[in-house]
């Protein structure tokens, strides 16, 4: 139980910090040691507005075909509803698109946790990586300078002109606005089944050991034995992306590898016992983000609960704390109810979604007399 109590300790410390706010916000909702809700972050509105338009603008990719929102779709909880993500034209992805809701609070990024807390860096990675948006940001900058709307918006946000550095500040600012809203768990309007599910989540199910904190994740990598998604290796376009990633990350034997090594790219254990660890995902907004797990192999929340009830999957490196839970059918259903209660209103209003963008470029008049 050492591991469990450590995790509870972490969650407890976190909750202690929040307990005052919790009491003020929704005294009737939860016991004081329960996590949530996700705190809103103060944003610079003009910068966030700029980031919102950039997020929905396909001109931020190399061939102008993909926007951030192509894979992070508002109506799908800022994920894409697919097992494995699409990717830049001519390629396909090998992991499941994660939600961006509450992402400003993340401690680490990507399913393998290879990037830290700087959303600015994450934005750069997403824009420039060859199988993501394949954008030379120097060209992106000049595209934005060609659009009078952006010229105005960058000024309004306190910048002299569009720049790639500005983009990398603005998109993270927009992401800060994506905060869960009105989840029954937060409003205290959970069904009886969900309330029972909460008790299982906290107790017998031990879910909170990893799914702790306001976003219900410890932001740490674990191996739960999720099976490989064979599509990665059966579909050349996905396998090519996987190999490209492996080469760049320095994963050994990448041509013969038939498994996603996950967090190994961060920890790099020589004995490879860190193969197959993936960062605990948030449990918020799951209603919109099926299928689940880093590779989309579990189609429904019921399947996820069944998976853990059976003690997770088969893997030599599986975390030894995963054991069959012996939950009854009804307990499993209650747990699913609780998980569903962690999803709030869809973030699909104009607050979160940019107005339609005219992607045609307009020539600069009197070009010879205008400073570049």
């Amino acid at each position, binding site marked *: 139980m050492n591991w469990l109590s450590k995790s509870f300790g972490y969650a407890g410390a976190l909750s202690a910090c929040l307990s005052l706010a919790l009491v003020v916000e929704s005294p009737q909702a939860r016991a004081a040691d329960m996590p949530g809700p996700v705190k809103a972050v103060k944003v610079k509105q003009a910068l966030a507005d700029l980031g919102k338009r950039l997020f929905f603008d396909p001109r931020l990719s*190399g*061939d102008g075909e993909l926007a951030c929102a192509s894979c992070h779709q508002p109506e799908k909880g800022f994920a894409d509803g697919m097992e494995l993500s699409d990717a*830049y034209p001519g390629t396909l992805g090998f992991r499941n698109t994660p939600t961006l809701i509450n992402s400003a609070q993340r401690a680490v990024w990507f399913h393998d946790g290879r990037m830290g807390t700087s959303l600015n860096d994450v934005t750069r990675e997403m824009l420039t990586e060859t199988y993501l948006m394949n954008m030379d940001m*120097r060209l992106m900058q000049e595209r934005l*300078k060609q659009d009078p709307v952006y010229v105005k918006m960058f000024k309004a946000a306190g910048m002299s002109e569009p720049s790639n550095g500005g983009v990398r500040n603005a998109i993270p600012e927009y992401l800060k606005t994506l905060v869960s809203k009105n989840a029954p768990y937060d409003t205290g309007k959970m069904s009886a089944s969900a309330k029972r599910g909460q008790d299982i989540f906290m107790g017998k199910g031990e879910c909170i050991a990893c799914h702790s904190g306001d976003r219900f994740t410890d932001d740490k990598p674990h191996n739960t034995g999720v099976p490989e998604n064979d599509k990665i*290796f059966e579909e050349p376009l996905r*396998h*090519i992306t996987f190999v490209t990633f492996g080469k760049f990350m320095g994963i050994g034997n990448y041509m013969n590898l038939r*498994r996603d090594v996950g967090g190994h790219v961060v920890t790099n254990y020589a004995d490879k016992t860190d193969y197959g660890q993936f960062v605990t995902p948030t449990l918020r907004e799951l209603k919109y983000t099926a299928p689940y797990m880093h590779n989309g192999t579990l189609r429904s929340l019921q399947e996820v609960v069944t998976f853990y009830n059976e003690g997770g999957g088969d893997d030599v490196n599986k975390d030894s704390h995963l054991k069959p839970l012996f939950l009854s059918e009804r307990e499993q259903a209650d747990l699913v109810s609780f998980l569903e209660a962690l999803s709030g209103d869809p973030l699909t209003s104009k607050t979160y979604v940019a107005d339609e963008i005219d992607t045609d470029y307009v020539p600069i008049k009197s070009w010879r007399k205008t400073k570049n």
Partner: protein
Amino acid sequence: MTFSISNPLRMASAVMVTTACLWSGSAYAADAKIGVSDVPNADPKSKLIFSNTTGGDADADWPLAALGKPPIPDDNRQTPAKIELGKMLFFDGRLGGDGSLSCASCHEPSVGWDVEAKISFGYPGTTHWRNSQTIVNSAYYGKLFWAGSSKSLESQAKSAAGGAVAGNGEADMMEARLAFIPEYRERFADVFGDQWPRLSNAWRAIASFERTIFQDDTPFDAYLRGDDKALHAAQKRGLELFTGKAGCMECHNGPLLSDEKYYNTGVPALDLWNDDALAQITFRYELYAKGSTEDMYRSTKDDPGFYFRTKEKADKGKFRVPSLRYTKYTEPYMHNGMLPTLKSVVQFYNAGGGINEFSANKSKLIKPLGLSDKEIDDIVSFLESLSGDELIVEAPDLPEYAPLANARGRK
């Protein structure tokens, strides 16, 4: 005298040292003891035609000669299997960002192995900023691209596949793609001994294919090999003007008809920049990406060309002299395609070149020539003798992707 044929510059300086006593003003005089074996890229069976220009610069002007076979670098010898592989790769868009553009997209065999528009297509969502150059006879250049930024076809192919407004491909991705094409795996193993196809060998194969795309049997080549009837009267008059009064040989000399040096001839700025939004974007991108001071980035409105190689102000607006071979099929002309026909090019030089933002660097060699209309037509006739039949190559069928063996997970 031994030459390193892959490096014309070094070759030229070797000649300058060893033949200094024969030096005669601006050109090799006809009586200089320069034999055809001294002339890079010349067919040994060719006669030589020396420049008659007076008042040119001090640069040595190689004599005109029939074109010999392309130089083949020691580290990339030709084999039929390599050439065949290179041909496939030349037409394969998977050596690029989104798979939609191959080398052949901007070097289309049916239109002179280049692009018919003033400037080349860019990558989807972009446009390029310079005229696409023909592949025909590219094997003879020691300097590829308009500002000479690549020294070999191998490195040219690599650069073109990678640039944001060209191929926009990334090396790891392009190499990974090759590994998933079984036929390429076999061919790379056969040609290069690669366990998995190596991207550097893809550029080698493409260069080998390109070295087969040359033309050494134009009417002018036949003339230089002794067939006096290969040129008609107007072409012969044009040749006289070319080597004499018009001074063309100051820059367009040797079998390739290029000295591969850099000059600003006053070619006007690309007009598309005035009203084409994509061209404006790419123009600023190039200024920014190739390295400019902020002041230069803000104020420059024309292509600084060779400046980006040297960062010397005196090199702004200079471009490497192109070959005049195969030009019958490669209109429009100049680094930005601003001159639509061969006649307009001759007229341009007859007028003493043009004016551009960097005219302070304009070559002193460019001055009004005083050619009559008939003389202009004669020169155009001669230029047409520098092209033979159109070289057409059909695009090959390309092999498809297939999963690797053991495609099941967790191994």
